[in-house]
């Protein structure tokens, strides 16, 4: 096993991709918040390009701007300067209604507190984004997505009957079911014990290995190590990048 480890470490670094084929391309992002009298510079000029199938982790101390960056990519917030494109389309200039559609159809979200609808069963929660769009076979696709995360046998349970880890699996299935351009995960293991958390990270890793693009915010190095590329933010700037050697 040691030799295998060494072999992994010794191979060359993969080359960075190019902007034209990027799933996410953000450039010159600046975002300032008002905190009473003072202006807080959350992002001070950040560029980010994410290629299809890439799993990127954003990490750094609290207040470093990593969540702000995720929110800008996800159309949950708008930059003061710079722009964000998703599959070549500028999203920072869209109306709120257009953004809501993009979020539902082209983005998947996995958040710290699962954010499932309490009155719906697991399979209905997963099917929900498809049902909103009137997609045919929504419930069948949702069942298949639940099977993929190992929860087929819990499909009819409401969230309150599921453990935290199971609820997060439902959230991952819901994020995957629309086959989004990118899944945005914000501290997805923050509310789970470490063993359960690693199961969720492995689900995300497996999805990335099947070609799913993922951007994840985490303050935790063990979680970040699941990613292909780890960007470290400090004071609103990217200060370091590490790539997994293939």
């Amino acid at each position, binding site marked *: 096993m040691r030799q295998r480890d060494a072999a992994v470490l010794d191979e060359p670094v993969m080359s960075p991709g190019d902007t034209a084929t990027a799933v996410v391309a953000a450039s010159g992002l600046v975002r300032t918040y008002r905190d009473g009298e003072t202006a807080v510079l959350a992002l001070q000029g950040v560029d980010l390009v994410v290629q299809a199938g890439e799993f990127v982790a954003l990490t750094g101390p609290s207040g470093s701007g990593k969540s702000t960056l995720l929110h800008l990519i996800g159309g949950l917030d708008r930059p003061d300067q710079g722009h964000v494109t998703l599959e070549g389309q500028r999203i920072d200039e869209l109306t709120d209604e257009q953004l809501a559609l993009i979020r539902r159809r082209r983005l998947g979200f996995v958040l710290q507190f699962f954010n499932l609808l309490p009155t719906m069963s697991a399979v209905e929660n997963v099917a929900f984004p498809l049902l909103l769009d009137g997609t045919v076979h929504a419930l069948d696709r949702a069942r298949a997505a639940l099977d993929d995360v190992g929860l087929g046998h819990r499909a009819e349970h409401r969230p309150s009957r599921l453990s935290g880890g199971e609820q997060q699996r439902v959230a991952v299935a819901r994020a995957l079911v629309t086959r989004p351009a990118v899944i945005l995960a914000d501290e997805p293991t923050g509310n789970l014990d470490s063993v359960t958390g690693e199961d969720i990270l492995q689900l995300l890793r497996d999805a990335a290995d099947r070609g799913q693009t993922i951007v994840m915010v985490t303050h935790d190095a063990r979680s970040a190590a699941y990613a292909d590329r780890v960007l470290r933010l400090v004071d609103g700037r990217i200060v370091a990048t590490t790539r*997994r050697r293939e």
Partner: protein
Amino acid sequence: MSVKFAVLGLLEPEPSHGYDLKRAYDAHFGDVHPVKYGQIYGTLSRLERDGRVRFAGERSGEGPDRKLYAITDDGVSDLDHWFTQPESPDEQIRSVLFTKVVLALLSDRPAEPFLEAQRALLLEHMQALTRVKSRGGVLDAAFADHRLFHLEADLRWIDATVTRLERMREEVHR
């Protein structure tokens, strides 16, 4: 970790004698394992042979400890190079990292760039090990986790150290 860089780092601010170097070494790094005189003298004579330190005068008195040593330009560039290199994450890394940070502060070098480079290298190893873990069987996972938890401890130590560098700098110069 080799005594070489500690001796070079301690000599950089001003020339010193073997005995004073031993005392300074033990004061900063010798809590668990004080260095032996023989190691200091052996290191000094190898460094002198290699042109990293030079004889800089003698003080009156008896014994082998009268020789005063000074660092040379080659010695300083060895030190400079050492500070730019993150340490390979092996068993001894914790004490080496601590020594390196203290020597950086003693010699008025910035410790942050080295710690950032170290952080990146540790994380890169964690990424490779996580790949081993997620692709392999349970034995691979157990092996990888053992290394991963230790690497994570080093990373957390770096986080904690970065927040107290200024106070450490004051204390080593006191």
